[in-house]
């Protein structure tokens, strides 16, 4: 049996910007969670979750030995820091959009 938890419970993340491209790196706290992160947190999953915000393609890079993923999201910043009319024109808070997604974990997982 499985249950859903927020990614925020098992991972931390940081967002950066270059022009209209946002990148968010996602790191599991416990290396034991890395396989499920890698399996469930795909580029397609993120694109499907935020289709209006992330308008371009998403590319995922994996650093397996450090247990982290990097998502490069194009046309994802409403134009970028000098163009966007949004309050967070850097997309600094995009990391928490990703951490807000659910992941499926075994029922008997501690924590």
């Amino acid at each position, binding site marked *: 049996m499985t249950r859903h938890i927020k990614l925020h419970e098992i991972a931390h993340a940081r967002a*950066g910007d270059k022009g209209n491209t946002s990148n968010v790196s996602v790191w599991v706290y416990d290396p034991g969670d890395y396989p499920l992160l890698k399996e469930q947190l795909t580029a397609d999953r993120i694109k499907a979750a935020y289709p209006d915000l992330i308008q371009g393609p998403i590319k995922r*890079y994996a650093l397996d030995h450090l247990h982290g993923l990097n998502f490069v999201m194009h046309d994802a910043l409403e134009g970028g820091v000098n163009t966007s009319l949004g*309050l967070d024109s850097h997309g600094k808070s995009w990391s928490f959009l990703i951490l807000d997604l659910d992941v499926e974990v075994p029922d008997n997982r501690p924590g």
Partner: protein
Amino acid sequence: MLRLGCGAGFSSDRLEPAIDLAEKGALDYLVFETIGERTLAFGHRDRQLDPKRGYNPQLAARMRGTLAACKRHGTRIVTNMGVANVVAAAEVVVDVARSQGLSGVTVAAIEGDDVSDLIGPDTILFDNHDKTVAEIGRPVVGANVYLGIDAIIPGLETGADVVITGRVADPSMFLSPLVHHYGWKRDDWQKLGQGTLVGHLMECGMQITGGYFADPGRKDVPRLAECGYPIAEVDERGNCVITKLADAGGMVTPRTVKEQLLYEVHDPAAYLTPDVTADFSGVTVQETSRDRVSVANGNGHKRPDKLKVTVGFDGGFFGEAGVSYAGPNATARAALARDILRERLGGRPGFEALRIDLIGINALHATAHAPRAESDDVRVHAAMRSANRDDVATMLWEVESLLCCGPAGGGGYRGQITPSVITHSTLIDRDAVRPSVRIFRA
């Protein structure tokens, strides 16, 4: 062993921990990194308004706080606080040195990042679906190429106490002292890659010592209010330990280092700078003791033939204005205020791009998902950009007028209009760039 400190990771970064580092860091070099796409645009804007400005607004304060200590300890300063006006910035440093009675301070100003002359209507902007400059339809206000170690090292070779630049690749300000000190070859791509890794980790200051990291209950950071800037101890092979002053707040852990490792990085195996194609894909991160993290195995490949240029365009005027609602039914009252603004302004030409957010309901992530909550404290925030300042002023007026002719209980109006610069990127041939050094003496 070379000790490099970072005393600013962005334009408005804090001063006090930089003074601590200058006083107690036993540093060989102190680097202040203060340019981003946003702040370079501000530099151009400031210089347009006043030809004696356009450098980092905190330059004089940072020099007053650290220059004397650096001179006393033999710490050399490398900084891009020249932003859009390097010569004016060098003169400010000289003025500070004189006012503090520091005789013999020399400043090397690195020029040549302004490549406005090389930008024409047909220049292609790779970050904007290959549109040309002409297609943007706005006047160009400045174009700056990312210079690298080839531009900075000649400044160090003069023996200057302070090397001040405009647009340079951020990691190059840390790589330059390493190449200069250890005599690394300019085509030793592995060492340049590892040195670029050091620079990349350091360039954002406290983002590696606990800043931009804390998430209470998940990632707690000790004494974040007193967070210290980072120190990198780097050996002649480029292997490095990231640490901080023992008495400073914050922390250096594998987690803070890993988050920074990929900050603003796209392909970890191909991080492009003017100096090298750095490869971070095999980097190892190892905690050796408390607040000491060893970072190794950065690699690199041949540097790119082309250099990146940020092109700034006159963005007209940016205006934002807000009014707040609180207490019972606040969300509905704020939503009504938003709808009234749309009705009063939305139909008029010039206001097509008006954006209105409800802060407290769904502002930062408004284009990501639908609102999910009610709030009893909501701020209506309107923003627009226009070439016509009067249109922006009209928007502010309409927001302020909500106090009397909007929903009940609206208060806390604030509004401001600022000149705006928008930026895009292009590439130019390395050979077209001619950096140079000018020396200023106190």
